[in-house]
C-alpha cells in the first residue's frame, strides 16, 4: 500500500513538474533535498537505517493516552527501541491519525477529504495494545486511570498525547456547536456554523469550507461585493499559519475565477503582529500589502449574529492616562469595545484548549495544558509522566513539525529514565509552518525558541517558493504518515 501511494504521488508530481519543464531530480536539487531521500528513505520499510538503534532491555508498562500523530509515532519508536516493549495506547477515535496539516488544502479544494483520512488501526505498531475507549479520570498518585467504560488501567510510565479541543461554544451565538476534536463526527458543529461560517480546523469542516468558499466566490464573480472575514483567537492554537493560509488560498481561488476585484479580504487577529518571528512578520506584512488584504490587530471574535451576518469582535487598545507622580510617567489605560463587522464569508479559527479531563486533573495546570519541562518533556510533578504534542505546555509547539522533534526526545528520555539514567535529550522548540501564500507557492517558516528563523535549507526562508509548495503538497504527507508513524523519520 505504501509503495503504491508513493508511486501515484510521484507520478502526479512529475506531471506537475513537466508542465514547468523540470525533472524531479532538478526540483529536488532546487529544494535542497538530498535526492528523493526525504520521500523514499522514510517511506520504504526495507531502507537501511541510517541511525543504528541499540535496543534497550528496560522494562515497564507504558501507557499512551491518545493515538494521534504524537501518540502513535511515540508508540512506534518505543517499539523500535525496546527489546520487550509493553505499550498500550488508549484512543477512542477511529480516524485519530488523520493528516491534519492537509486540512487547509482540503478547505481550498486542492485535496479531498479522502486524501487526509487515515485509520488508527492501520498504524498500530506490532505488539502495541489499543484500548478503544476514552480515558476520563486520572490518578497519577496511584499510577492509574479510568476510561468512560469503567476500565481501570494501571501503568509504570504514562505519556499524555490527547491533543486539544476546539472551543467553538465560547463564541456567543455558537454555543450549540459545542467543543470539537479535529477528526470524527462533527455534524453538530457544522450544523451550528451554518452555510456562511466555516473552519478548516476540523476534517469535515475543511470539506465544508470548500463548499462555502465556492459559493461566495461565485457570488463575487456575479458582481456582488463580497466580504471575506478571517479570525485568529486569543488562545494558543495548533498551526499558527492556518488562519492565514486559508485566506491566501481563498485569494488564489478568487483570482483564478477573475472575481478578486469584487472581494474584500480582511484578517482580524487577536494579537498585535502577523507572526511571532520578526523576519516572518515582515515578510507576511509585505505579502498582505501586495495582495491588497486588510487587517485589524487586537480583535478577538466573541459573538456571531448568523441571521444578520455580523461578527462581533472585542477590540483592545491602550490610551494615555493621567500623570503618575510616583512612577514619573503617564498611566496606560487599557480600553476595549465591541466592534460589529458584517461578513458574507466568515472563517473562524476557534479558541483552543486542553480537554477538560486533562486540564482539571492532577496532570493539568491552571492553564489547562500538561506542565512539562519544555526541554525534556517530563511532567514537572510526576517523574514517570511525559507529554508531547498539542496538549503539552510547550511554547510555540503545536504543529506536526514540533512533534517530529519531540517524540524522539521523549523516547530517549523515557528509556533513560527506565534505565535509571539522567535525561539528556533536549527539545529546542523547533517548529515549522509551511505558509501557503498562493496555489503554487509556500514560505517555509521554520523557527525555535530563539524566535529567529532556523532554516533547514540554504535558501532565504522569507521568500515564497514553488519548491516548498511541492514539498508541502507532495512530500510532507508521506514523510509523516509512513516515516513518523513508523517511528523513523
Amino acid at each position, binding site marked *: 500500500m505504501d509503495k503504491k501511494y508513493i508511486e501515484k504521488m510521484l507520478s502526479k508530481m512529475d506531471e506537475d513538474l513537466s508542465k514547468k519543464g523540470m525533472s524531479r531530480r532538478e526540483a529536488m536539487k532546487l529544494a535542497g533535498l538530498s535526492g528523493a531521500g526525504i520521500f523514499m528513505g522514510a517511506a520504504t520499510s526495507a531502507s537501511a537505517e541510517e541511525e543504528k538503534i541499540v535496543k534497550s532491555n528496560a522494562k515497564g508498562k507504558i501507557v499512551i493516552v491518545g493515538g494521534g500523530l504524537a501518540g502513535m509515532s511515540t508508540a512506534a519508536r518505543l517499539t523500535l527501541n525496546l527489546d520487550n516493549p509493553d505499550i498500550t495506547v488508549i484512543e477512542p477515535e477511529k480516524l485519530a491519525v488523520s493528516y491534519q496539516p492537509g486540512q487547509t488544502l482540503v478547505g481550498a479544494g486542492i485535496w479531498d477529504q479522502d486524501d487526509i483520512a487515515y485509520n488508527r488501526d492501520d498504524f498500530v505498531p506490532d505488539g502495541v495494545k489499543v484500548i478503544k475507549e476514552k480515558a476520563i*479520570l486520572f490518578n497519577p498518585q496511584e499510577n492509574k486511570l479510568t476510561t468512560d467504560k469503567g476500565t481501570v488501567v494501571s501503568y509504570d510510565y504514562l505519556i499524555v498525547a490527547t491533543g486539544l479541543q476546539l472551543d467553538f461554544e465560547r463564541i456567543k451565538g455558537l454555543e450549540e456547536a459545542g467543543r470539537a476534536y479535529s477528526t470524527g463526527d462533527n455534524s*453538530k458543529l457544522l450544523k451550528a456554523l451554518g452555510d456562511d461560517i466555516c473552519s478548516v480546523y476540523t476534517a469535515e469542516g475543511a470539506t465544508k469550507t470548500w463548499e462555502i468558499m465556492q459559493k461566495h466566490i461565485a457570488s463575487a464573480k456575479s458582481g456582488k461585493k463580497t466580504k471575506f472575514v478571517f479570525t485568529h483567537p486569543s488562545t494558543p492554537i495548533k498551526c499558527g499559519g492556518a488562519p492565514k493560509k486559508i485566506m491566501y488560498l481563498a485569494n488564489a481561488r478568487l483570482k483564478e475565477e477573475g472575481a478578486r476585484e469584487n472581494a474584500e479580504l480582511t484578517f482580524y487577529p487577536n494579537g498585535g503582529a502577523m507572526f511571532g518571528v520578526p523576519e516572518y512578520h515582515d515578510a507576511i506584512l509585505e505579502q498582505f500589502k501586495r495582495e491588497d488584504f486588510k487587517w485589524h490587530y487586537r480583535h478577538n471574535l466573541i459573538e456571531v449574529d448568523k441571521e444578520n451576518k455580523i461578527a462581533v469582535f472585542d477590540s483592545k487598545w491602550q490610551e494615555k492616562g493621567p500623570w503618575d507622580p510616583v512612577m514619573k510617567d503617564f498611566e496606560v489605560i487599557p480600553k476595549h469595545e465591541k466592534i460589529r463587522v458584517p461578513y458574507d464569508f466568515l472563517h473562524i479559527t476557534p479558541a483552543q484548549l486542553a480537554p477538560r479531563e486533562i486540564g482539571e486533573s492532577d496532570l493539568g495546570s491552571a492553564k489547562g495544558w500538561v506542565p512539562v519541562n519544555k526541554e525534556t518533556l517530563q511532567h514537572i510533578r510526576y517523574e514517570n509522566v511525559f507529554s508531547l504534542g498539542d496538549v503539552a505546555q510547550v511554547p510555540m509547539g503545536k504543529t506536526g513539525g514540533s512533534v517530529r522533534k519531540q517524540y524522539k526526545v521523549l523516547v530517549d528520555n523515557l528509556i533513560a529514565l527506565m534505565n535509571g539514567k539522567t535525561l539528556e535529550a533536549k527539545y529546542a522548540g523547533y517548529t515549522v509552518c509551511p505558509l501557503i501564500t498562493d496555489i503554487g507557492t509556500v514560505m517555509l517558516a521554520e523557527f525555535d525558541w530563539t524566535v529567529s528563523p532556523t532554516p533547514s535549507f540554504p535558501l532565504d526562508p522569507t521568500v515564497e517558493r514553488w519548491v516548498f509548495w511541492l514539498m508541502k503538497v507532495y512530500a510532507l504527507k508521506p514523510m509523516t504518515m509512513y516515516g513518523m508513524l513508523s517511528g523513523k523519520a
Partner: protein
Amino acid sequence: MKKIVLSMLLASIGLIASESTVPYKSGLLLPPQADKIYAKECAHCHGKDGKQTSSTGLTNVSYAVIAGMDTAELAKTLKEYRGGIKSKDYGPLNKYGYGAVMISATKDLSWDEIDAVAKYINGLK
C-alpha cells in the same frame, strides 16, 4: 512457560471493568447522562425528586419546584444562566438572583447536556 507469560501479560493490563462503577463527567464530549448530571449538579438544592424548595446555607433561600417544568423553557433558562462568553465584561446576566450558584452548576455543561438535563427534570413527577 508461554502460558505463564501470557497470563502475566494479561494481568498487567489491569482490565477491571465493572458495570456499577462506570464513571461519568460532564463537559467531556461524551454522550450526555442526564441522571448523573442531575445528581451531581442539581440534586443538592432541588432534591432528588426536583421538589425541594428551600436550602439553608449562609442564608435561608427558597425557590420554586422544578420537577415537571417545560423542557424547552427550562433548557432556555439554563442556557441563559450558563452564558456564552467567559469574559467578565460581557458575562451572562444574573437572572433571578441565583446567577452565581446557577453558573457554577451549569458552566461545564454542553448545550447537549443541558437539553438532556432539562428533559430529565421534565420527567420528574
